[in-house]
């Protein structure tokens, strides 16, 4: 880099951020008492301090802005959200298309909703009929449209409720909720608009711009929305954008079925079982759920195999609340750490290799000298997820990403049966009892075991329940339908070598798994994972274990990239 280049960079940097007209006018007004700009200054000052200014954009503000941006032939004397609401009363179809590919339609008077998601998911919902049709363009199995019932969901009674009402709701929240809305007249692509900015407070107590909604004071309709993209969604779509922008339009017609979203009309529909579950299924599920809810609430769960080690510390009571398909973990603290067990022969892998067989004590001793490659910590009000650093010889080994989010989760963000409750009683985690049946006379099933089958569309699962061991699912077989419509076994899992906790609860010390190759040229995989569960006392869980701020501090020391939404 030459001296001239440095000069050019520094000069450019010092002049990169030019003020806009309004900022300059406000400064001028404050310094030199320009009368017109004084009003603008007043607007600017209040814009920052007053959380809700819905009835703004007075004639004076607009006239000032008019002066600043040039001549406009027509300008309405006033615009309130009530005006926008009135304009939306007669709107039937609302359509929005975002720049990352997401596309939505709503017909609120008829209670219809449709979406084409950038990840290939298509959905059409008729809330009056209580039906939903879903289709995934990227699914590997045969293409199916999955039809099921949809739980009641308030999408409002007019387009206003659907696309602007949420902004008003936020504006009416008390300040302690950390959400507020500011409104200001701005020029958008050469036309005068009012912009409603929603600010939120992130889990590290920093304020961030969450959403901006532009409305047209002439047509009195929303024009554009800019929303901060949730980090998890951004990663899911592999998007390198922090905000997405969508433009509204109000077409005369919209999709009347999922086929109108571009799904091939020949795609068959599979209908999920509806209505109440059979009595014999409910009786079994009740026993299963009772066992899951009675499982101890404070423990350490360690699992290890030839590739990885996982350590979970759990403290909290699992309950059954409003969701019919999930257990609730509100108020639970848990911390989950994932370590690589590198079993390569090269020298660089050796420091990260856990020799097997190993007892739980050996694993913990080994892990105490390792750095986890990912950490998830959930408390009752925040969730912390860290990925990295990796072992030294990996590419970008020292890269550390952290995501911190508000709020408790309804279920743990743990994969591959890392949560004992999900491992032992998988039907309590997302299964709809209405689609479960009891299979009779299944070949090779030990006496006394019960086999439940659940499924819809192109997949199904069989659960082998052992009533003699706390109704634990000791075997699970997953099936998928291939392109010829035949069912093929895709994955299987067995829980084995059972032991009992001091409380008498059963748990497996080994999980054996098999998975079909994803392609004909690939190889099936089979592996064994060892399991240890130890009940803990409160004194076994130091405060620091569940302290997110401590982890944030450590992550900062590692130079982590920290995202908070």
């Amino acid at each position: 880099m030459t001296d001239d280049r440095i000069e050019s960079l520094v000069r450019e940097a010092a002049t990169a951020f030019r003020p806009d007209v309004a900022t300059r006018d406000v400064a001028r007004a404050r310094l030199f008492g320009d009368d017109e700009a004084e009003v603008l200054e007043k607007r600017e000052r209040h814009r920052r301090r007053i959380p809700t200014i819905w009835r703004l954009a007075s004639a004076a503000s607009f006239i000032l802005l008019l002066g600043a941006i040039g001549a406009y032939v027509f300008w309405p004397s006033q615009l309130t959200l009530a005006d926008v609401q009135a304009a939306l009363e007669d709107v039937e179809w609302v359509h929005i298309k975002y720049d990352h590919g997401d596309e939505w339609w709503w017909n609120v008077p008829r209670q219809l909703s449709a979406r084409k998601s950038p990840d290939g998911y298509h959905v059409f919902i008729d809330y009056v009929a209580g039906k939903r049709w879903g289709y995934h363009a990227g699914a590997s199995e045969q293409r199916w449209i999955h039809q099921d019932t949809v739980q009641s969901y308030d999408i409002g009674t007019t387009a206003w409720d659907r696309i602007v009402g949420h902004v008003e709701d936020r504006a009416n929240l008390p300040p302690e909720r950390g959400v507020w809305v500011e409104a200001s007249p701005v020029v958008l692509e050469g036309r005068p608009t009012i912009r409603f900015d929603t600010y939120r407070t992130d889990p590290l107590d920093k304020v961030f711009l969450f959403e901006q909604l532009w409305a047209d004071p002439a047509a009195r309709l929303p024009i554009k929305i800019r929303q901060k993209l949730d980090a998890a969604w951004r990663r899911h779509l592999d998007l390198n954008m922090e905000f997405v922008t969508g433009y509204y339009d109000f077409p005369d017609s919209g999709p009347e079925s999922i086929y109108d979203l571009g799904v091939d009309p020949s795609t068959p529909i599979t209908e999920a079982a509806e209505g109440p579950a059979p009595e014999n299924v409910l009786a079994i599920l009740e026993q299963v759920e009772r066992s899951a809810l009675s499982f101890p609430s404070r423990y350490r769960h360690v699992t290890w195999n030839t590739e990885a080690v996982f350590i979970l510390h759990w403290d909290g009571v699992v309950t059954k609340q409003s969701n019919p398909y999930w257990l609730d973990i509100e108020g639970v603290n848990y911390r989950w750490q994932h370590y690589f067990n590198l079993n390569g022969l090269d020298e660089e892998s050796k420091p990260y290799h856990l020799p097997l067989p190993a007892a739980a004590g050996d694993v913990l001793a080994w892990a105490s000298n390792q750095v986890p490659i990912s950490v998830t910590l959930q408390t009752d009000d925040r969730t912390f997820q860290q990925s990295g650093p990796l072992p030294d010889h990996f590419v970008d080994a020292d890269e550390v990403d952290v995501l911190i989010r508000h709020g408790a989760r309804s279920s743990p963000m743990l994969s591959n049966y890392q949560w004992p409750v999900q491992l032992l009683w998988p039907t309590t985690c997302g299964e709809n009892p209405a689609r479960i049946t009891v299979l009779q006379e299944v070949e090779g099933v030990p006496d006394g075991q019960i086999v439940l089958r659940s499924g819809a569309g192109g997949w199904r699962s069989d659960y082998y329940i052992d009533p003699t061991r706390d109704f634990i699912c000791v075997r699970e077989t997953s099936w998928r339908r291939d392109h010829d419509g035949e069912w093929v076994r895709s994955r299987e899992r067995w829980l084995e070598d059972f032991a009992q906790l001091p409380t008498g609860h059963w748990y497996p010390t080994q999980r054996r798994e098999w998975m079909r190759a994803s392609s004909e040229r690939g190889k099936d995989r089979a592996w064994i994972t060892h399991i240890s569960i130890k009940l803990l006392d409160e004194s076994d869980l130091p405060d620091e274990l569940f302290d997110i701020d401590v982890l944030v501090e450590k992550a900062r020391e590692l130079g982590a990239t920290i995202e908070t939404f």
Partner: protein
Amino acid sequence: MREANVADASQIDFERLFDEHFDDVYAYITFRLAPQADAAADLAQDVFHRAMRSDARLRTGASARAWLIEIARNCVTDHLRSRVRRNHHVDRFSDLAGHEGVEEPGEERVDRALRVGQIIRELSDRFATVLEDKYILGLTVEQIAQRRGETAKAVESALSRARDAFRTAWRGIEAREEGASSCETLR
């Protein structure tokens, strides 16, 4: 209403001064504060307030722009010292482009400016100041030396070492970003 404590004669000059240099002052402050540049507009006004109250310095021979930028530098320093962990502050990093108050300078330019700002903040005060004196205030080596009461040779030496430090820091950031970029590709 005009401010009572500003004389009419000088006010005319200051209005002209404002019109000619406000953008530069604001841009400099935003650059120095970024990514937390929410106070830039207030500080830019403060620069002109200070200038109006010390108009004698305008006759020192320095260019008006350099003089205002120097005041702005002091304002930024004072502000950074006083910004001791506030309850809330707006992270304007994502906000600089497209937010009211700042015209959109283009993503690449923003990135470069933020990167330069980061380097300047991480350099020692002596190196940062000499680079700013030279490239932002537009002073000659002799003028810098005169202001500091140093020899021109000492200033040249400081400037040379400041550039080396700048290069090293720039390469470090580039290396980190390349690492991040290749990781993104792998994902």
